[in-house]
Structures are given as C-alpha cells and as structure tokens.
C-alpha cells in the first residue's frame, strides 16, 4: 500500500482511511554511520555513536516530496496559523481568483472533521482531508501519501492548510516551496515575538481581517516591526479575505512563485538529460 514509507500513526486518517503504521525496516536509514566502540560479547555494555537528528526521517520524506514537485513544476505552499485566522476563507477566495488560470489542489489538515475540505470542494477543485487525531501538525510522510492520492497535474499549485497551531508546524519541513503564515488582526500585535519560530520559518506573512481594523486598537506598524525583528526578510501583505482587499497582491505573489516553479522544473529536466 505504501511505496515510500516508514513511519506514520494509526490515529492519522487520510480522507477517512487509516494511514498505516509501518513496521518494516528502512534500508536507506543505514546512512547514519554508527561506530561500535567495543563490540565484544553481546551482553557486555558498549557505546554506540549515532549522530542522528530526531527529525532526520521527516526531512528525508520532505526531500522526496520536494523532488517530485520540482520534476512536475508544482508549487506547494504550506499555510500555517493559529486556529481561526482565516486560512480556509482565504483559500476559497484564492481559488476563485486563480482556478481559471491554473490547476489547483488542496490538502487540508485538521485534528477532526472534513468540513474544511468540503468548503474547498465546493469551489470545484479537489481537496484531500488529513485528520491528525491527537496530532498537532502535519508531517512530510502524511503529505507524501496525500500527494500520491491526489493525482496532481503538471505546473499546478498545491496548497496545504496546516493544522491551526502557531507552534509545531514550524519545525516540520513538508517539502513546500514556502511556508505562508497568516496572522489575523484580532490575535494581537505580539504574536511574532511570542511564537517566533513560525514567523522565522515563513517567507510570507498575510495579515488578515484588516477590514476589522477600525474596530480594534491593533497597531499594524508595530506588528510589522516585531515580525521583522524575528525575520528581517519576511514579506508582508495586508489582506481581508472577506472584503478582497490585498488579495490581488497575494495573487501576484503566487503567480510569480509559479513561474519560479516552472523554471526549476526546466532546470531539473535539463540536469536529468545532461546527467
């Protein structure tokens, strides 16, 4: 059933089906070089050097996802935020603006329910729901499976809506081109400092629900200043998913990234041909 795999948990569901737990060995894992210090009798204690990053396996899956995406010229964007910042609303608007120009697919991550995937499918694009159960983030292995099930088109866009959580999705590379962090103005200016890992991991920040600014004492400039302390090269766009302001700039950003993905694909093909 699984072509790539290693890990996974029996709490994870992809479109309602259990993502199997894999107990098989991973020959590729032999990369980690282990030196046996004093290999003598089996029952005698010995020291084993191992030097293995805890997330090494996730990073390998991420790399294979990235390779697949590059070969097919697919732009994968990983949308991360706290719960309720407006990711799904924003995705629906984004799909409406782009779906006549480009093929789009969406992977939805939530602990429970497939409501967000249903909201996406209502636009006509295909969406796959991953339910992580108790898990608080998506990992690269789940995404690899989801990508196999989605039959992705060449030169398309694959959006991932991560589990609403400003903490741990920052630590998991899924193989995406960029993490896009969404912060809504009702959450407070201090979030970039309180959850710096996420704002550092992202390349773009969408400041959402800007239509509500007249009713709040939210200081936009201070938020931007905080975000730039954590990540000086973070690009920031102010948007309102419900009113549509700022959406054209976000769409332009995406289109530009799609061109980059196409260029990467061409390079990839050339290097395969010459190599």
């Amino acid at each position, binding site marked *: 059933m699984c072509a790539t795999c290693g890990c996974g948990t029996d709490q994870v569901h992809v479109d309602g089906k259990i993502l199997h737990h894999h107990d098989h060995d991973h020959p590729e894992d032999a990369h980690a070089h282990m030196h046996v210090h004093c290999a003598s009798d089996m029952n*005698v204690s010995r020291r084993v050097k191992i*030097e293995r990053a805890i997330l090494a396996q996730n990073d390998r899956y991420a790399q294979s996802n990235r390779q697949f995406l590059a070969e097919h010229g697919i732009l994968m964007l990983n949308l991360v935020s706290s719960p309720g910042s407006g990711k799904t609303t924003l995705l629906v608007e984004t799909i409406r603006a782009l779906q006549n120009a480009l093929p789009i697919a969406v992977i939805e991550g939530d602990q429970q329910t497939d409501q967000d995937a249903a909201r996406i499918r209502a636009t006509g694009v295909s969406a796959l729901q991953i339910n992580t159960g108790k898990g608080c983030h998506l990992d690269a292995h789940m995404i690899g499976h989801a990508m196999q099930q989605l039959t992705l088109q060449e030169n398309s866009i694959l959006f991932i809506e991560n589990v609403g959580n400003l903490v741990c999705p920052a630590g998991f590379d899924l193989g995406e081109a960029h993490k896009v962090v969404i912060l809504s103005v009702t959450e407070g200016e201090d979030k970039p400092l309180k959850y710096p890992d996420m704002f*550092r991991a992202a390349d773009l920040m969408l400041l959402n629900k800007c239509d509500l600014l007249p009713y709040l004492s939210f200081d936009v400039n201070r938020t931007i200043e905080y975000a730039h302390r954590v990540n000086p090269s973070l690009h920031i766009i102010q948007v309102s998913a419900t009113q549509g302001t700022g959406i054209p700039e976000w769409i332009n950003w995406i289109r530009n990234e799609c061109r980059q993905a196409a260029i990467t694909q061409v390079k990839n093909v050339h290097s395969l041909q010459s190599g």
Partner: protein
Amino acid sequence: MHELSLAESMLQIIEDAAAEQGFTRVKKIWMEVGRLSCVEKDALRFGFSVVVDGTVAQQAVLEIIDIAGRGRCERCSSEIAVTTLYDACPNCGSYAIDIIRGNEMRITEMEVE
C-alpha cells in the same frame, strides 16, 4: 511542541539501530537539545518514558546535553550569544542573525547491551 511525536521519532531511530547493531537493551542515551529548538525537555522526558514502555529502551536513562544559542550577524559578521529569535546584534543593532548553534535535536550516542 509535539514532544510525544519527537519521542516516537527517537524510538524509531533507536529501534532501527537495535536491528542493525543487534543490541537488545539500551541503558543510556545521550542527546543534544539546543535552547532555540523549542523542545520542552521535561515534556520530552515524559513523552519518551511513555513511548519506550515495553521496548528495548524501556530502562534507558536520558542524558540531555543543553546547547546554548549562537549566531552570526549578517551585517557585521560578529559571532554572538543568542537567547531569543528576536535578539538584535549587540555590536551593530541588526536583527538579521544566522543561527549557527542552538537548534540541535539529535541523538549522539547510546550505551547498549
């Protein structure tokens, strides 16, 4: 963050090593955890004690080596101590700091039999 799933990844690394190296019991594990890695050490210890129950690492002592944050300023190139991800360079005030140490999350060595 997600210390339980990190503990599961650790167990996978240990079990892979056990299969390859033919050991049946892990007595001690040395690991490096950087202060900027956002791992809560007590939560990791707890998560680890839960996931290793009934495995080769059931009785393993977890020795966590703490790694302080270090960075290099992109503007003035000085190497500095980093305690938060929004530290400014003490020499030039820039926030553009490359983290060079303090993100570690890795198992370095084990005592096994």
